């Protein structure tokens, strides 16, 4: 056990998996000599050499397409997209290629690869660096989308992703890279992909979230508890597939649901969560389902992003509203 940040946990997961399995390698822009723009791969090129920690030319489609080819021929690449907003360049290779090879070859081929990418707001990045695009991929069968919210989960989920036989998108909230430390086991361990975690138990309302919003919500839920309001907080951890069972069980108990995410509202993952409940748990509901999310505009500039993101004020107002029913 040691107290480490999320970025350290991520680096540790990759290092240990690469030590264990020579088929695992890393490719991406600036991941080698520079150790990644967030230092996620710092030092790895010295340990594993440039054949396994590949500084690539600046071309996202090629990074993912090459990784697909590698996976088809026995390797297990971890491809890094420097910021999630740049993944559009590689959409065909992600959605038409990686996601479909198993299906198109009815199992003759499959693509055991991981795509890591930082995302999310609140850190005053330049334009186009803060988008949360998970929903695009949840609408693409063949992909899994994992979004950790703390160092412990990050390590266990990334190891599970590397060992997964299918393409896994692993999105890392950059706001949380170094925001806190947590006790993380030194050894290798897996956290199953596709299982949500109830991080706070309660019976008055359910809050579903993941990634960057979770720590803020934990704090808020703890605060409410002191004031006597018992909220249940679910960290999805994996947004595709969604762990519907855990959500439905919770809503059955609390009768109230709120979803919090940074991505823009319309057709975000929040929509799918709401739809699942309106399909299978509608009679449990005593209140409307609320979504507190990024607004339906492009991610804005630094001077206004704090007012654009789901923030405490918005969430508290929504909780008030839920509890008023």
């Amino acid at each position, binding site marked *: 056990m040691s107290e480490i940040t999320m970025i350290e946990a991520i680096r540790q997961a990759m290092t240990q998996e690469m030590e264990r399995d020579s088929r695992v390698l890393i490719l991406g822009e600036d991941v080698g000599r520079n150790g990644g723009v967030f230092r996620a791969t710092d030092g790895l090129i010295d340990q594993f050499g440039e054949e396994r920690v590949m500084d690539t030319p600046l071309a996202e489609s090629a990074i993912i397409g090459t990784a697909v080819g590698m996976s088809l021929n026995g*390797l297990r690449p971890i491809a890094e997209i420097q910021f999630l907003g740049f993944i559009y360049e590689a959409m065909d290779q992600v959605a038409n290629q990686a996601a479909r090879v198993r299906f198109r070859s009815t199992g*003759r081929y499959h693509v055991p690869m991981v795509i890591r990418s930082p995302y999310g707001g609140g850190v005053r990045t330049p334009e186009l660096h803060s988008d949360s695009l998970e929903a695009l991929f949840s609408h693409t069968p063949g992909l899994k989308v994992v979004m950790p919210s703390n160092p412990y989960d990050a390590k266990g989920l990334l190891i599970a992703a590397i060992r997964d036989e299918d393409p896994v998108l692993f999105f890392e909230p950059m706001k949380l890279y170094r925001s806190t430390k947590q006790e993380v086991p030194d050894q290798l361990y897996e956290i199953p992909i596709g299982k949500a975690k109830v991080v706070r138990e309660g019976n008055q309302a359910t809050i579903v979230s993941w990634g960057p919003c979770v720590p803020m919500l934990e704090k808020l839920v703890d605060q409410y508890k002191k004031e006597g309001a018992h909220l249940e907080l679910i960290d999805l951890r994996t947004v595709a*597939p969604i762990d519907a069972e855990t959500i439905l069980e919770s809503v059955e108990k609390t009768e109230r649901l709120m979803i919090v995410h940074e991505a823009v509202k319309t057709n975000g993952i929040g929509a799918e969560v709401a739809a699942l409940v309106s399909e299978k748990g509608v009679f449990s509901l005593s209140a409307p389902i609320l979504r507190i999310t990024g607004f339906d505009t492009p991610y804005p500039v630094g001077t206004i992003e704090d007012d654009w993101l789901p923030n405490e004020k918005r969430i508290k107002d929504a909780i008030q509203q839920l509890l008023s029913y």
Partner: protein
Amino acid sequence: MFREEDLTFERVERLNEDGVLLHDKKVVSDEQVLEMYQWMLKARLLDEKLLRMQRQGRIGTYAPYSGQEAAQIGSVFALEKSDWICPSYREHAGNMVHGMPLEQIILYAKGHLHGGRVPEDVNILPVQIIIAAQTLHAVGTAYAQKYRGEKHVSVSYFGDGATSQGDFHEALNFASVYQVPAIFFCQNNQYAISVPVEKQMASKSIAQKAVAYGMPGVQVDGNDVLAVYEVMKEAVERARNGEGPTLIEAVTYRLGPHTTSDDPTKYRSKENVEPWREVKDPLRRVRLYLENSNLWDVEKEKAFVQTFQDELDHMIDEIESKEKEFPKVEEAFEYVYQEKNAQLEEQQAEARRIREEGDWHE
């Protein structure tokens, strides 16, 4: 200033349109030429059969390759079975030679769920629909070979139109930066659907594009199976020796429509097609050579055609007799992930129920 005028243009040729060898140096034996011809003939017959079947509604949209047999087969002849092919949708001739079973080609054409299931021991990727996407897969498979210290090469096949795609450029760049054993084999059949190559690009050749990547580029007469073989052989050797990738442009012609949904008279004239269908036909000159060498004649041809057509018809009959047993919708759910998640389990059950209960589309 860099200008294309400074380049020296050359198109490699070995066997002229009359079946006469242009150089003494022949790198293949007459037995091999015969074998190549027989594959080309099979390929032509398969293509014609599938085209007919499409017209009869027995298969779906089909992309014929007639006219391009020399390019495909000449190049695949230079490969070992352990080498990888990343093909487009118009590559059945080459794929067949590399080990793709005929049955598989027919199942694919029939929209059978397993149509893309390449046999385990055949190193061919599922045919690529998205133009140029496979050029990157060739880089990745080649990298894996190099990484493991294997001597295999990866070949990606694509058309003239594909050279306009960003993926083509990114693939050549990656391949040359990492010096992987990849070969980029372009069949310049002069059209991307209706767009002629002169409107696809402003350069005089496709092969010259290799210069942008510090990579060797070769233009070859793609209807000359011997020239193609030779050029490919050299590229394969360079790749196996760790000397990196090559771009090959095989200049050829698509005799038929782009696909069975296409009407080529919209964009090209009879006069444009005619010479390619006759004197420039890739089979013709090999047949002339073999006949002149007393290795082939009309009788042999007739018997060969009959045997193959019988084999083909028999195989198709077999498949068509089982059409009712083709996989059902619920099987599709098995191939999304290694393991089905809860949503897929539920949906699979629903799909099966609906299909079994439904009489709506009988």
